[in-house]
């Protein structure tokens, strides 16, 4: 048997977590340094995988497949294609940022970092699993470390927020579980690729096998779809299933928020791409209009909501809803039509989605990192009205954070731009009206982000911020790679896209037939 690269990938963070727990309690700096190094090592391992990844074929690679629970036809199956690869990459990138962003955690830092590593492990597991059974294991377990990170290190109302987060996500997971069990009962398979291979409209057949007495197979199929959809819609989130998000992102410590928005929300999108679109394509086509409306509403409402916020964290919480909204819009657009003439646009849209995931992970995480720095310097104040005229005191801070913000509003030359460009370019021909409404999102994003810049950095210096100091050398060095990466991705996105082309083509092909 071959080298179990992926299993090791998921095990590395676990090992790291154990190591963190074994560290001596007394020392304050030791945990953070160890955590940082370990996370960078894991990043290195992931990059190694990326290099070893054969971008000339769009099939699954590094496959591991072992019989597990024969009674349930469950097998342990790991493999990655380009999509999973992007996910792994962004997770590996986000975690160090998150750790850096929570550099100054005082309370039980080793436990804190251990939980972060566990979170990473579960995410790796989710992105590599191809069998519902253990995919679901990781999907669920990811909540636990996240919960405790929020609950124990969060702000005043953290308890409520964390519970809301957990219960909300659990609701989604349970409905998804029920749907998948229904599918299993009829098909006897938990394997994603196998289920996707069943081709269009196998679900009504499934429903027919279930022999539900009250509903027609078609409707039952929709019911099953709805269950799964809810699971992911809550995770991403899609308005109106998002109410857990603002409170959670706000109450969580900024480092954790960076991870939540940077990596964990991507789990939802990944679910859409890996599970929902391939397996439920016919149902999505059935419901395409409402779904598109949902995503448009997500984009527009979230951006307006962001505009109305006073709390910086809340602003970017909503803005990350908005950014992922583009991905979902494009995702739904992918399955709208099977007209071969539109194939290039679909390619563009899909690569746009992937690029957007990566760049949003990078940008959002970095922004929350900056926010954590802000919070630290402003000893906890987060409201726009608490800041002002910082540029004079901290030019470097202002400049670097400005870059991050600009990348988030999609300024050309920064990573946000090519992603959104591709998405819009690809989506517009597929669903013109929805896309054109969504452009509003870009516009308002620009508005409120400029508003933030203006409020925080320009104008007269705020009275309480007299002792605000600029980035230290260490912080600059730490931030530099992230900023550079933004530029790199913005100027030369091919770096990523080239690795994904084959996958994109294969994926679309499999989606259409």
């Amino acid at each position, binding site marked *: 048997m071959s080298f179990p690269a992926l299993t090791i990938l998921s095990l590395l963070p676990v090992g790291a977590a154990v190591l963190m727990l074994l560290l001596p309690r007394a020392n304050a700096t030791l945990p953070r340094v160890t955590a940082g190094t370990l996370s960078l090592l894991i990043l290195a391992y992931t990059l190694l995988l990326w290099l070893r990844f054969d971008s000339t074929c769009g099939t699954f690679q590094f496959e591991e497949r072992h019989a597990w629970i024969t009674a*349930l036809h469950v097998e342990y199956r790991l493999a990655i294609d380009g999509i999973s690869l992007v996910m792994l990459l962004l997770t590996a990138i986000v975690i160090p940022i998150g750790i850096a962003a929570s550099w100054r955690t005082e309370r039980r830092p080793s436990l804190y970092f251990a939980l972060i590593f566990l979170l990473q492990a579960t995410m790796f597991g989710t992105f590599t699993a191809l069998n519902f059974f253990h995919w679901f294991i990781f999907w669920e377990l990811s909540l636990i470390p996240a919960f405790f990170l929020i609950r124990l290190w969060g702000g005043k109302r953290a308890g409520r927020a964390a519970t809301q987060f957990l219960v909300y996500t659990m609701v989604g997971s*349970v409905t998804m579980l029920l749907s998948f*069990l229904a599918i299993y009962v009829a098909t006897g398979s938990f394997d994603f690729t196998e289920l996707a291979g069943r081709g269009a409209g196998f679900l009504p057949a499934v429903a027919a096998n279930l022999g539900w007495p009250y509903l027609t197979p078609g409707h039952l199929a929709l019911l099953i779809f709805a269950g799964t959809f809810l699971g992911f819609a809550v995770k991403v989130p899609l308005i109106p299933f998002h109410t857990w998000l603002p409170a959670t992102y706000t109450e969580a410590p900024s480092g954790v928020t960076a991870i939540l928005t940077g990596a964990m929300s991507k789990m939802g999108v990944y679910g859409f791409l890996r599970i929902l679109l391939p397996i439920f394509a016919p149902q999505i086509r059935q419901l395409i209009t409402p779904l598109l409306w949902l995503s448009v509403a997500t984009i527009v409402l979230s951006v307006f909501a962001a505009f109305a916020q006073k709390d910086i964290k809340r602003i970017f919480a909503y803005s990350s809803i908005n950014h992922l909204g583009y991905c979902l819009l494009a995702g739904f657009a992918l399955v709208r039509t099977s007209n071969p003439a539109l194939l290039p646009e679909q390619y563009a849209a899909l690569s746009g989605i992937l690029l957007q995931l990566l760049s949003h992970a990078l940008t959002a995480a970095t922004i929350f990192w900056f926010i954590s720095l802000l919070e630290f310097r402003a000893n906890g104040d987060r409201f726009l009205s608490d800041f002002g005229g910082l540029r004079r005191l901290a030019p470097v801070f202002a400049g670097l954070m400005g870059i991050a913000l600009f990348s988030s509003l999609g300024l050309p030359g920064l990573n946000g731009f090519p992603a959104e460009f591709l998405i819009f370019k690809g989506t517009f021909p597929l669903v013109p009206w929805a896309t054109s409404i969504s452009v509003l999102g870009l516009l308002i994003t620009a508005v409120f982000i400029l508003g933030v810049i203006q409020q925080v950095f320009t104008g007269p210096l705020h009275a309480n911020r007299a002792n605000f100091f600029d980035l230290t050398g260490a912080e600059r060095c730490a931030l530099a790679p992230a900023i550079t990466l933004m530029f790199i991705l913005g100027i030369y996105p091919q770096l990523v896209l080239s690795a994904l082309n084959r996958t994109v083509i294969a994926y679309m092909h499999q989606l259409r037939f």
Partner: protein
Amino acid sequence: MLAWTIYISFLGAGAMLLLPNRAAKTGVRCLALFTATAGFGIALSAFLRHRTGEFFTVTDIDWIPALGIHYHLAADGISLSLVLLTGIVAVAGVLFSWDIDDRTNQFFAFYLLLIGAVYGVFLSYDLFLLFVFYEIVIIPKYFLIANWGSTRREYGAMKLAIYSFVGSAMVLVGLIAAFVAAGSQSMSLDYLAGSHFTAAFQLVAFPVVFIGFAILAGLWPFHTWAPTGHVAAPTAASMLLAGVVMKLGAYGCLRVAMTLFPLGLQPWSHHVLGFASWREVFAVLAVVGIIYGALVALVQRDFKFVIGYSSVSHMGFILLGLMTINLIGVSGAIIQMISHGLIAGLLFAVVGRMVYARTHTRELNALGPMNLSRLLPFAAVTFILAGMAGMGLPGFSGFVAELMIVLGAWGAFPALALCVGFGILIGIVYVWRAMQKAFFAEPDREAPPPHSLQPISLPEKLAAFLLIASSVAVGLYPQMVLNIIQPALNSPLFAGLRHGGWQ
């Protein structure tokens, strides 16, 4: 060899009784621990040796020739796994009741008596023998609770005893009727299962026997003994109660009621209140139990009551699994028996031993301010793990069980499967609520806990580790249990059930 699980426990109990009241406590405890461990070891070795899961006879002696009753012990995959469960819980229980000081030897005597009887029920192949062991269980239960229990112990104990005895009375009626109807040649399982009773007889006998057993399995609305009993009982007793004794009920439902009277599950000729068969009736009752128990647990103020009702809810899963008469559902039910045995035991241990024995209160609101997550981190972590396992989080045994049961339910009663989903959700919520209130509530700085709590002792840690480890093992590799359960379910013994709509 396997029979010695029974004998050694009884011998241990006898030895305990012979010991003087003033005997050295540690010696008594060690003896008890030794006995329990020996039983566990035997069970484990048997579990490892018999991988086929088919029935194999342990002992078969002509006992009462006048009625063709044999002293016949046998085991198949199902009973083996349950015997193993009993062994694990027994050991854990002894470890968790290390702090019993009042009449220690009597306590452990009753304890071991109970254990031995439970082994006996799981191992007996002759139904007379099974019933004998089944009734022996009642008395030690009563005394354990009434003597060493806590709140309203005598009420709880008496209630439990009465419920059990009423249940076993129903079982006795059914058994005698079946015995006579089968020609009173023999009481052995295969003989009775093989003698085809008339459908009319089975339609009457099935509910009687099934309810008789299900009372002990906490079937709604006969569950009310469970919360009071669990709360009143001392830790070890509630561990056994929830861990194995309730399983006796479920086991009886499967092994006796459903095996002897498969036709009793067949649809009636007519509809009553929309029900077309006992199967539907009991399935609905089971689901009601799931949701009802979870909801009631959601608003309890007493920590132990939360767990008590949670076990009502979990037992509902077992009964539902049994009622989905298909291979996956029933094996799921058996896995749930094991899983709940481990987890409920652990939960009760945390609440009763780790928390209550130290803080002397079980009021969630009173526990909150003590900031237990810092004072007793081990207890907190254990409870989190146990709670996760209990609410069916993947990776633990509870998940596999619920998954398989819901699979079965999808096949049998789709509508109920959806309700079960709701039940699972409520389960998550109440576990989380209890955990937050008990361990992670905001500590009030000015009022630190009155007494410094002594740290979690070694026996407790051992036992907790044992239970968690086995739960995770089952959760990650259920195949090891399924390997021997499913052949057992495919054995000719269940032929009747298979004809009755087995899938």
